[in-house]
């Protein structure tokens, strides 16, 4: 089973209470499924920051796979061969 490390930044890290954790995922798992699993571990704030009211991954969440921003449909990202996922909620502190 591939292990993938998830890290969180900004308000999402505060909502998770941890900067990172490692999951055992099935081969060819979709990010979307892993996010659903993670959301069930945290309180509603974490879920609200990741998913919009329609249940889709928010357009403003930056998803970084092995150091590169993932583009395209955020609900269809495969984690095949991915070692690290960074989930960044936008920050604007000055």
């Amino acid at each position: 089973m591939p292990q993938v490390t998830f890290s969180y930044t900004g308000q999402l890290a505060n909502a998770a209470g941890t900067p990172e954790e490692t999951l055992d995922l099935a081969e060819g798992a979709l990010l979307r499924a892993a996010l659903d699993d993670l959301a069930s571990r945290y309180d509603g704030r974490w879920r609200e920051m990741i998913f919009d009211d329609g249940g889709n991954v928010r357009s403003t969440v930056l998803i970084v796979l092995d150091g590169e921003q993932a583009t395209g449909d955020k609900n269809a990202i495969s984690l095949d061969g991915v070692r690290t996922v960074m989930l960044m909620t936008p920050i604007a502190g000055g």
Partner: protein
Amino acid sequence: MKDDYQLTDLDRAFYEWQLDVPGFGEAGQAKLRNATALVSRAGGLGGPLAFSLAAAGIGKLVIAHAGDLRHDDLNRQILMRHDGIGKPRVDSLVTTLRSFNPNVEVEAIAENVSDANAAELVAKVDIVFGAAPLFEERFALNRECVRQNKPLIDAAMFSLEGQVISIVPGKTPCLACLYPEVPPHWKRRFPVFGAVSALAANIAAMEGIKLLAGIGEVTLNRMIYFDTATMRFQQIRIQRNPDCAVCQSQPPS
């Protein structure tokens, strides 16, 4: 940008230690002296950013920041002055910058950036630094910088983390490529140490100085992200969104 500045003896006296930086020299200094920068808010991040640009001898700073100084600004807003509490923030920052380096022109505007004033403010300058605590202000700057084809260095922090994105329209993603809408959970009040803001500020200042003076390598198409909890720094590869509502029509340059 004008390109006709001749260094004076006073400039040489002020800046001689940085003239020794390889590749910078008098030509690089003249480029900085020629340049005007807009800093959107001079708080915990924009303050040290403007301070470092003034120290480096930029020609002119245009600084937009509304409101009166409060006690609780002073853990981070290092351009401010304790005797300025209750008075306009722009008064404090002008006093500080003028007493630090009277050789740099400062135009302080007691307004925050908005859709109403962004076009006029961006038109005055060669480079823009975004350091406002609200996405609406950052997005207004982003739209105008793309429209007027001006570089924007966007710097932000939260708690122990910070990030800097150098935006060159047509060459890099713009802010709206990364965040197509205002993030609904962002709050005006955020946890902050001044040192974290100042760290992001000085990374942004160096990005701008490199871009203006033509030295080093500006960090294009990468977000600089750091977490002072672990002192881990990283660069994240970022991409233009071909459907971006702001920069889609800007041809790749």
